[in-house]
């Protein structure tokens, strides 16, 4: 790689990372579907109100519309974690992972959920391995 290429590359990287710093709250849109977004929004509200069961039902409704949306599966995993249903949390996060092979951000969060779930199940080594994956972004 010549120097000009390298400079250009670094410039792009800086620009991109700069964007991220400037707009910290903006995550990729979870869905293009208005119905799914409405249900996701409803689930968020139910989660903040501590109504996890209701939130789970809302997410299942969203999954009927977009069954392969990894964000929805992840949210469901987070809810199960809150409900201390570790086995389900772990499996649902794995499902989200299976549907999102290319999204580092989503995968890292899924591995965090899996780590916490394994911790809850008393599987220390498993949890450690999961947290490691969350960090390495693999």
């Amino acid at each position, binding site marked *: 790689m010549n120097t000009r290429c390298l400079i250009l590359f670094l410039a792009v990287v800086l620009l991109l990372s700069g964007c991220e710093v400037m707009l910290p709250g903006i995550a990729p849109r979870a869905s293009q*579907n*208005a*119905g*799914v*977004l*409405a*249900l996701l929004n409803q689930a968020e509200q139910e989660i903040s109100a501590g109504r996890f*069961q*209701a939130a*789970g*039902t*809302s997410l*299942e*409704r969203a*999954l*009927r*519309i977009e*069954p*392969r949306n990894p964000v929805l599966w992840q949210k*469901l995993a987070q809810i199960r974690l809150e409900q201390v249903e570790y*086995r*389900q949390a772990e*499996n*649902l996060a*794995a*499902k989200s992972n*299976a*549907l*999102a*092979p*290319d999204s580092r951000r989503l995968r890292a969060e899924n591995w965090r959920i899996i780590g916490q779930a394994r911790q809850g199940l008393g599987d220390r080594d498993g949890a450690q391995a999961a947290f490691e994956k969350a960090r390495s972004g*693999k």
Partner: protein
Amino acid sequence: MFKRLKLRKKPILILALAGVTILALFIIHLDFTVRARFEGKRFRLPAKVYARALELYPEQRLSQADLTKELELLHYREVSHAPQEQGTFRSNGNTLEIMSRPFVFADGSQEPMWLRVDFAGGRVKRMTSESGDSLPLVRLDPPLIGGIYPGNYEDRVLVRLSEVPETVIHALISVEDRRFYSHHGIDPRGLTRAIFKTVSGESVQGGSTLTQQLVKNFFLTPERTLRRKFTEMIMALLLESHYSKEEILETYLNEVYLGQDGNRAVHGFGLAASFFFNKSLSQLGLSEAALLVGMLKGPTYFNPRSHPQRALTRRNLVLERMVAEGFLDEAKLDSAKAEPLDVIDKPPGGTSPYPAFLTLVYRQLKRDYRDEDLRSEGLRIFSTLDPMVQAKAEKALSRGLERLEKLRRLPPGSLQGALIATTPQSAEVQAVVGGRDPQFEGFNRALDARRPIGSLIKPMVYLTALQQPDSYTLATLLEDSPLVVEQSGAADWTPQNYDKQYRGRVPLREALVHSYNVPTVNLGMSLGVSNVMVNLRQFGVEQELPEFASSLLGANALSPLEVTQVYQTIAGGGFFTPLRAIQAVLTPEGEALQRYPLNVEQVAAPAPLYLLTRALQDVVHEGTAEALNRYLSPELDIAGKTGTSDEFRDSWFAGYTGDRLAVVWVGRDDNGSTNLTGASGALTIWGEMMAGLHPEPLILSQPENVEQAWIDPTSGLLSARGCREAVELPFIEGSVPTESAPCGPGSLSSSVKGFFERLFGQ
């Protein structure tokens, strides 16, 4: 003398005391019985089963005709003006305007709302509220699809007294119990008059009050003894002392027997209103109310469907009594009497139109509920049935079987079939067809017919291999030459390919794609039959299956439901989710009793599953299920597998798109030959059904530890793009062949090619 008198009196006193005690105990016993029965009767309600509630959202693939059909299923009324009343709609060009009904769901209630839905190109284009705001999501009330009735098939629609029109109560009091509001359970004046008239031979009169009639209903036998009459009177008095007139009247209105629909008994005015007029009780007019009340005297004798003249005379008599009691103006009498009976010809289906699906619901419920509770607690059950999918499935199956019989010159009616459709990721059962007559309530082939599954087992064999990437890849060559399997305690077995040919060595992928038997048995034997069966159990088969070499070719019998469960796990990417026919169960008051949440369990790693699925897509692209392309575009990348059992007894197809999975079985009840393969039989029905459902393409997510490589299929070695017959295949990282075929990387031809590529900057 005084003493003797005393002595004589004592036993009488004791006797009297004993008598009073016994009577008191008897009354206490009756009191207990009557209260228990009254409370029990008031709430004895069959469970109601609903289909899934239709969710509407912009961009949804749903045509105007589809939504109209759903509204008809919900008994929404089409109107010509802007809809105002709940449960009405207007069709206007590419638009439907709907005034929805309120409904209490497991996760809260839906208020009635006005909405406008615009359609374009078979999709929902836009939804707007009355004020013109755009709506992201609207959930309609779910269609009622059936009930779970008590053992004696009593059905009823519970009504509250406040919903009962005055005319019904007036008619009832005029005819059955004029002094209902003033007596205390029995009516001495009415009784005396009845006895007098009966004795004098003038006419036979009952003289029972409504309360007594209600008490009489508590006994199952219509016995007519003096003792029973006496008990009945005491109970009536007791009932009146515990409950208000309103409570008694309400229970009476819900309890009385008013007709028969096959083996279903019609109880209560609520159900009778829909049974005879297809209306809710509150909508009944004067003459309709009078007809129902008139029928109480003899629901069979005065049945307006079988004896319209009798029923009409009786109704008019009721109307006259109402005038006599002052409930009706003389002036209105003539017009009411002139009205026709207006009874609908066919009662709306009380017995569900979906018996096969309901059986599945019932079996799943029985895991968590006592039979008694299902039949009497008035539970509201939210099922996963999708009426649109069910309708397409029923039609595809019955039409398909007819077509196949004609095509194959089979006697009409000789073929049978079953079909199950589900959602691949959440495992919700959308349709169950148990035979070619979907209304038939008997043998449910979808759940109970266990048949050899033939090649439907093969994905399990190949998955077991692909889970060992060090030994097997899609490019591994399998032995396809004459094979004799020696088994202890059984005759030698010589498996053969469908075309009776041997191909020497075939790539693993092609062996599955073309469903070759010999390589499969070779592969399965080296893997170990029991390892394959372990996978089958992991994927959801609960029953213990015998393990033979022939199990590798699907000699074991499974039901369509069991097959669906296995393919569900494949479609779910190795995540097992128990098939669900129920979403939630609610009490009549709307309290969530139980939810059936979406649970997943990873039973296979994603990478081998991905490889398997790619091969199953090739089954449709180029293999045994190629005929599917006549029904559906190859661009949908559908994954599927055909299955045929020995002597063509069973024809199977299992497959899935991006949004739906279905399994079809075709065979004969007498287990005879159908002359059909999986591809010529079940596949055609599968294709026809799916084509009507506009499936989404199956888009796979390639796992991170999978890479692609170009392979020379004959040698199984590495090749390159552009080489003759080279195919690009997915491999689990580290399992790509390292050796190169003549045209592959590192070979002479490749360096020449590479030279030209570098030259032209490709």
